[in-house]
């Protein structure tokens, strides 16, 4: 059974909307900069923040503020509405559709703001009550409610592979006959939880990140949201819409190595890419581009490259990590990078791996300059999360009969 992508929506450090994202990618301009919105003592770390403030986004969306003040929700509504409208989905289409959203922090931004005062009688305010909106499911429900009246809403939370797994879960909902249409992706606002947590693990880079560079020194965090509309072939025909691409294969595997580190030979990553190609009935030579997880940590990039070498030997297809554009958008990265992949396919270019200078080894040279190629048929998008939770998605140029 074929699953098609019929719409996209995105907001990240590269801008608001699919078109703005395309322009930023083509101009090669990174969205990573000094931290402006997040209240933190750790301003020494650059990050890929969405340029707009919460108030700006609420104003743009026309939703009440501050009552809709969770940043994850605001980013999510922006991307979800764009996805729905770009797929020309009407309210009547949504009533049986599912909304599947990946996140790990949900409303953590407000928890961090009000946690102390909520338990302190003197400084307790009305705002402290916003603590109850912390959970991930609440964020998904708020995004869904402000986008349309969906038949089903659910959340996936598997750290940095959350949005990729939301897409996998969405595709499975269609294949199992639960629904014909799914809006799937993820939303994640940058919080102290990310910055302090990743800093505790000593995997943040104080300079701009350099994925796949020999001297890479860690991650720049990012934030954002992206959703794609998944649809069965029958629904695509019934609604007479033109698909952007086919989701031809996907797999989720476990690295079974360590809670946060990845195995030296990239077992989980290898299996995820292999199994996704098996589902898509593609051989390694059919893949024209790999959008790598490529976080910029010494461990991830070495392990992911090892996995690619196991599949392609010295013939690794064009690959790049776009995290030097967006920062590592953690739970939203799977869908944000999916939209980037779809743009690359539609417009015939490979987004460059910014910041790269020196190869890890002879084979590990990512695409760095503007690479315009006409025909990108099949793309693998990798997303790996803590817990060894590894997912690969394959998008293929459409063949609709």
């Amino acid at each position, binding site marked *: 059974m074929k699953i098609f992508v019929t719409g996209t929506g995105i907001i990240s450090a590269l801008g608001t909307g699919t078109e703005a994202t395309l322009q930023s990618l083509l101009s090669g301009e990174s969205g990573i900069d000094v931290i402006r919105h997040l209240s933190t003592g750790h301003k020494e770390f650059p990050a890929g923040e969405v340029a707009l403030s919460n108030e700006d986004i609420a104003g743009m969306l026309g939703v009440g503020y501050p009552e809709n003040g969770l940043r994850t929700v605001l980013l999510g509504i922006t991307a979800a509405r764009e996805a729905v409208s770009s797929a020309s989905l009407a309210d009547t289409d949504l009533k049986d559709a599912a909304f599947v959203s990946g996140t790990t922090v949900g409303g953590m931004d407000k928890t961090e703001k009000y946690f102390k005062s909520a338990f302190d009688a003197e400084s307790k305010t009305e705002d402290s009550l916003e603590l109850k909106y912390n959970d991930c499911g609440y964020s998904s429900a708020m995004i869904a409610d402000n986008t349309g009246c969906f038949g089903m809403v659910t959340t996936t939370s598997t750290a940095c592979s959350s949005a990729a797994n939301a897409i996998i879960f969405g595709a499975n909902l269609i294949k199992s006959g639960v629904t014909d249409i799914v809006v799937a992706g993820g939303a994640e606002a940058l919080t102290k939880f990310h910055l302090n947590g990743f800093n*505790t*693990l*000593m995997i943040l880079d104080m300079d701009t990140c350099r994925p796949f560079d020999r001297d890479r020194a860690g991650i720049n965090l990012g934030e954002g949201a992206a959703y794609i509309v998944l649809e069965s072939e029958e629904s695509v025909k019934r609604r007479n819409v033109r698909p952007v691409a086919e989701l031809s294969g996907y797999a989720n595997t476990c690295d079974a190595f*360590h*809670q*946060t*580190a990845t195995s030296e030979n990239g077992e989980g990553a290898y299996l995820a890419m292999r199994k996704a190609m098996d589902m898509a009935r593609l051989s390694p030579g059919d893949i024209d581009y790999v959008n790598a997880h490529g976080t910029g940590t010494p461990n991830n990039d070495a392990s992911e490259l090892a996995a690619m070498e196991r599949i392609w030997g010295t013939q690794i297809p064009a690959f790049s990590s776009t995290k030097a554009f967006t920062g590592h958008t953690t739970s939203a990265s799977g869908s944000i990078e999916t939209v980037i992949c779809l743009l690359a396919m539609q417009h015939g270019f490979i987004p460059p791996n910014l910041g790269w200078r020196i190869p890890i080894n002879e084979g590990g040279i990512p695409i760095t300059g503007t690479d315009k190629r006409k025909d990108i048929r099949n793309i693998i998008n990798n997303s790996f999360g803590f817990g060894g939770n590894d997912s690969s998605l394959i998008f293929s140029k459409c063949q609709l009969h």
Partner: protein
Amino acid sequence: MNELIDKLKTQLIEALNLEDMTITDIDTEAPLFGSGLGLDSIDALELIVLLEREYGIKLTNPAEGKEIFRSVATIADYVSKNRTK
């Protein structure tokens, strides 16, 4: 020095949840990582926190830990030379 070594062993057991271990079970010279006690990268980070909290030593690069954390003896040596509290 022996006093510091025993104190470090006690702190190691506590910080790294080495259940069922006493300070006599830890060989002062034996490697802590790899075989030895089977510690991993998260334990190394926990040791970095321990050095800062207990001895005022700030390591900014986890790679520095490799040499320092080779054994209890190397930690004791480093702590005695660099402690600020």
